[in-house]
């Protein structure tokens, strides 16, 4: 399991290749890339700044990945989350999960993202045509995380 919080961009292809190289038993790789949109809540977004809670961030993501390992049969997982200043079309977050078969990889990848959205201590402040503002948490994100409780 690897968790990285960094200001630099990441190379999805290189990260997938590195995970695959490490284990020839891998039969499935699922990945998710989150990207900065140029619009939010009806306003044009020129960029954003991501703040986090160093220490707790890494710890909370490690706990989320550990939960995924208990629920699904996966070989490895990698989470990279960027902080600092980002602009539209920049990559923000990467989750990669490897497993023998696609079902476990898809499910674990989605679970990790849904839990990260509601539990990992990151906060976005966006620069919009209406001024700088903190992004509000979404009820739909809470619901997305909540639905995993019903399973398993």
């Amino acid at each position: 399991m690897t968790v990285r919080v960094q200001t630099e961009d990441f190379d999805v292809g290189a990260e997938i290749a590195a995970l695959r190289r490490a284990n020839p038993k891998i039969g499935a790789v699922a990945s998710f890339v989150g990207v900065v949109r140029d619009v939010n809540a009806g306003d044009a977004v020129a960029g954003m700044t991501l703040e986090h809670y160093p220490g707790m961030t890494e710890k909370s993501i490690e706990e989320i990945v550990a939960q995924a390992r208990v629920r699904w049969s996966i070989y490895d997982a990698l989470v990279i989350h960027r902080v600092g200043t980002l602009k539209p079309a920049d990559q923000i977050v990467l989750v990669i999960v490897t497993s023998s078969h696609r079902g476990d990889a898809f499910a674990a990848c989605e679970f990790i993202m849904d839990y990260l959205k509601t539990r990992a201590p990151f906060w976005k402040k966006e620069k919009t045509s209406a001024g700088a503002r903190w992004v509000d948490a979404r009820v739909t994100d809470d619901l997305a995380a909540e639905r995993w409780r019903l399973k398993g």
Partner: protein
Amino acid sequence: MITVLYFARLREELGTGSERLALPRAVRDLEGLRAHLIARGGAWAEALGANKAVRAAVNQSIASGDVPISDGDEVAFFPPVTGG
């Protein structure tokens, strides 16, 4: 002493990101600490008030109001998270 951290909107509204605090004798848990900070009035009462969505962590784990606080703990208050 305990360490109290504030993040994002709270950090801006309170004008500070962290402080060291002698744990008041009356404060036993997270809700008690929040009430102690609200009692400072002004921006503290405003930012941490019961009508505000405030989340907290004790020693870097998400915590609810009844989680006990003791000397040496690291406590953090912050808005609902918005990463990903």
